[in-house]
């Protein structure tokens, strides 16, 4: 169980999160929706240690793990797919994956396993990561996080800027991640897509969670209202 308790975070004078509470069970898919600037990315970055927060604000299996370094979170099974993919430009596709494989935890995800799930990557391994299409890059970014064998995979805007077909492929990969028993937190702008692929959702607005519930029984109109805050 990954739980966020009473988490507040700020950048300098600007407070980005106001006592946010959120829970993700093992193997669960949770959607996090909200407009730009609602604090979704900040929340994910606080969980993985890129934004410093109090220890008790993030609990993993009951243990207070907030404010630790990214490496410590990674080794305890929390990995982030950052917004905009952020592949290493000087590294080939394979090298991007290898760095994470080597630094992460041992577990079910190996290079062979990943290529089974994403066969399209097999022919691209030696290419520079920047020469790939947006959708392919996103698959590499997700693969890179998976190879560290997380129990909780946090995905920041994985469908942003992709063609509808590429989005389907990316969500296909996330489905297999879910089947492997890895919990996924989906930050999404596309509310329908997010609700369709998750079991529960949280809607954020101006740094606060304003609505939460089961995705299957979510009222799209209410979520939209909460999303835009009008």
């Amino acid at each position, binding site marked *: 169980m990954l739980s966020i308790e009473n988490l507040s975070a700020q950048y300098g004078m600007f407070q980005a999160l106001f006592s946010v509470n959120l829970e993700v069970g093992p193997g669960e898919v949770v959607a996090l929706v909200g407009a730009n600037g609602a604090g979704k990315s900040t929340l994910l970055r606080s969980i993985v240690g890129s934004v410093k927060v109090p220890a008790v604000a993030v609990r993993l299996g009951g243990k207070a793990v907030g404010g630790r370094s*990214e490496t410590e979170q*990674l080794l305890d099974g929390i*990995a982030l797919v*950052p917004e905009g993919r952020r592949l*290493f430009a000087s590294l080939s596709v394979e*090298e991007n994956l290898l760095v*994470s494989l080597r630094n992460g935890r041992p577990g079910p995800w190996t290079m062979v396993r990943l290529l089974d799930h994403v066969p399209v990557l097999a022919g691209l391994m030696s290419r520079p990561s920047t020469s790939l299409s947006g959708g392919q890059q996103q698959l590499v970014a997700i693969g890179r996080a998976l190879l560290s064998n997380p129990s909780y995979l946090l995905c920041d805007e994985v469908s942003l800027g992709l063609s509808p077909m590429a989005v389907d492929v990316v969500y296909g990969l996330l489905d297999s991640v879910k089947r492997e028993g890895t919990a996924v937190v989906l930050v999404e702008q596309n509310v329908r897509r997010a609700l369709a692929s998750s079991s529960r959702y949280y809607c954020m607005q101006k740094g606060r969670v304003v609505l939460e519930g089961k995705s299957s029984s979510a009222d799209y109109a209410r979520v939209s209202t909460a999303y835009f805050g009008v």
Partner: protein
Amino acid sequence: MQMAVETLLNGVMLGALYALFGLGLSLSLGIMRMINIAHGDLIVLGAYLTSAAVEATGFSPFFALLLVLPVMFCLGWSMQMFLLNRVVGRSLFAPLLLTFGISIVLQNLLQEMFTADTRSLRAGELALLGVSPAGISIGVLPLLSAVVSVALLGTTHWLIENTHFGRQARAVSDDPETARLVGIRDRQFFATVTGLIFVSIAIAAALYALRTPFSPTAGPERLLYSFESVVLGGLGSIWGTLAGGVIIGTAQVLGAKLSSGLGPFLGHVVFLIALLVRPQGLFGRASA
């Protein structure tokens, strides 16, 4: 003809050593995005440490160097961990100022500890040995220093291209924030890199001190030659640094042949002309 070839060869061998001087600068700029102004003074420090180790143990300079290498690694590791990491990654200027300060402190410390007298490392019989294939005479010592330099540059290049260490180095250079997300502990990693840079500095220092007398104030000039090699070759390219070093070294030896005071001058002239023609350096990318 024979003399021209000898001059050229001497220039190339000196240049290979300059490239080794430049290696550390190139790595700290490439991986940590910082310029170490104290680089030249650290070379001089390495020379003094080796010289002190020779005096203390009575070993030959080569064995004494083996004692100095771990000391320099620890020095580099701690300097990065406790001092440089505080300023690295914020702006280019903070490390520049900090290392400028370290440079001044080092020069004065060396003068205090070892006096301002010029010293040199004695290579013994090796300094007198020479080989003469096809009637061209080459000193064994310059040849040895060139071979060691090229071997170290080659090894470094291989490490960067083919190992986990090298992949982490390129990743952290591309994007430190994302590098942390894939489990690279950047601060510890930088400390290790600087430790290794200091090892390369110590080797370069010993080779330099075997050929040239040195004094506590010799650092800035070493820094200048290192810089010229790195910039002329193009930032971020190790073979470029070798090419840059060879060009500067050859120009210096040619200049010294024309008139004894002209050596460094001709090196600088060639550097300036090359920069005017190709501002990005020989192997640099045009946009970078």
